[in-house]
């Protein structure tokens, strides 16, 4: 009887493990995907710092100068300015993409643009007066596109980036506010 109980318990443990594997795979899979997204975010920050004039403020932002949440502007994103240069399949956002971006913009957090995020410390400033401001980028469309918000003393805009090969490139911009 005792042996039987033991073998039932053993079988149950195996059974439990059997059902845990998918969860474990899912967890590992999510972590790998998260790291891949983070790697793209870092590559984008490096792209911005390398290609933009001036220095970026050392902390990312999540609202406009007026304190408005960036998610409320998702519906106003419009990249028709670049219609002559870019295919409309790149500039037009689908409803599900807009929903994804809205959620991402709502959940944006302030992060430090330091050595962990960027390889260009000389392009970072702690002085608000001297720098421009950026939000963390939101990567979408299978990590081939990204949007981030940037702001200076005279306006703020969403910037669309496209990954070409292994490099990120600025593609278009959409106004959020202008003086």
């Amino acid at each position, binding site marked *: 009887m005792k042996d039987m109980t033991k073998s039932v318990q053993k079988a149950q443990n195996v059974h439990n493990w059997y059902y845990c594997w998918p969860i474990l795979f899912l967890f590992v899979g999510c972590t790998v995907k998260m790291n891949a997204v983070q790697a793209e975010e870092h590559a984008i920050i490096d792209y911005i710092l390398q290609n933009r004039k001036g220095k970026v403020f050392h902390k990312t932002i999540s609202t406009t100068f007026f304190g408005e949440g960036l998610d409320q502007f998702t519906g106003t994103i419009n990249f028709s300015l670049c219609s002559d240069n870019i295919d409309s399949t790149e500039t037009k956002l689908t409803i599900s993409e807009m929903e994804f971006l809205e959620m991402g913009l709502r959940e944006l957090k302030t992060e430090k643009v330091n050595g962990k995020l960027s390889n260009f410390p000389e392009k970072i400033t702690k002085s608000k007066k001297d720098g*421009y401001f950026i939000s963390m980028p939101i990567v979408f469309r299978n990590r081939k596109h990204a949007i981030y918000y940037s702001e200076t003393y005279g306006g703020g805009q969403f910037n669309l980036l496209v990954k070409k090969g292994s490099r990120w490139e600025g593609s278009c911009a959409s106004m959020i506010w202008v003086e």
Partner: protein
Amino acid sequence: MGIINKLALKDMQRLTVPDIGQIDGTGHLSQGILDLFDSSGNYDITFKVEQLGTTENGNELNGGTTPISGGWKIKLDSDLVNNGTQLSIAKTIIHESVHAYIGYQLANYNPLNSDIVADLNSLYQKFKNENNSLNLTQHEFMSQYVDALAYSLAVWDNHRLTMDYYKMLSWGGLESSSAYQVLNNKTNFQNAIQNERYDKVSAKSTKCP
């Protein structure tokens, strides 16, 4: 509100034919823009007065335009409204209305009618790598129409002052443009702009009653 309503009126003083009750005056920039939004079933301009504050570099914001659902919101700084002359407020409304007009053109982009968008795009390509690329793009675009901005201001002011004075004021907010950079006597321009902005002794207009 009175300033906005008057900006929407046509130029009644420059009629080349006597007013016989059928001709309602000649159009101008701000009137055309406000009329466009007034007749649009899809887009509105909303005006709001609020404290806009000062940016980190000490730049006092007079106004701002932002897209909202169903149109554009123009924010006027409460300090400007309380302390600036009516001419300075009218100038700011005209300036911000043009930003809303640009937004309207982009929102209604049509490949068959895309001259303005093409012009904006070619300017954007020039400023693409600047941090405030769209701000520079729109102000560079607007600097081509300073005469029209000034004329609207003159109409609003019943042509009381010289066109040169209205032009000087209309350069306010366009200082980043290449056209402004090459102007002579920029000090005079800035003096006029500041006089009206802060209702200084030399201002030629008055504050709102």
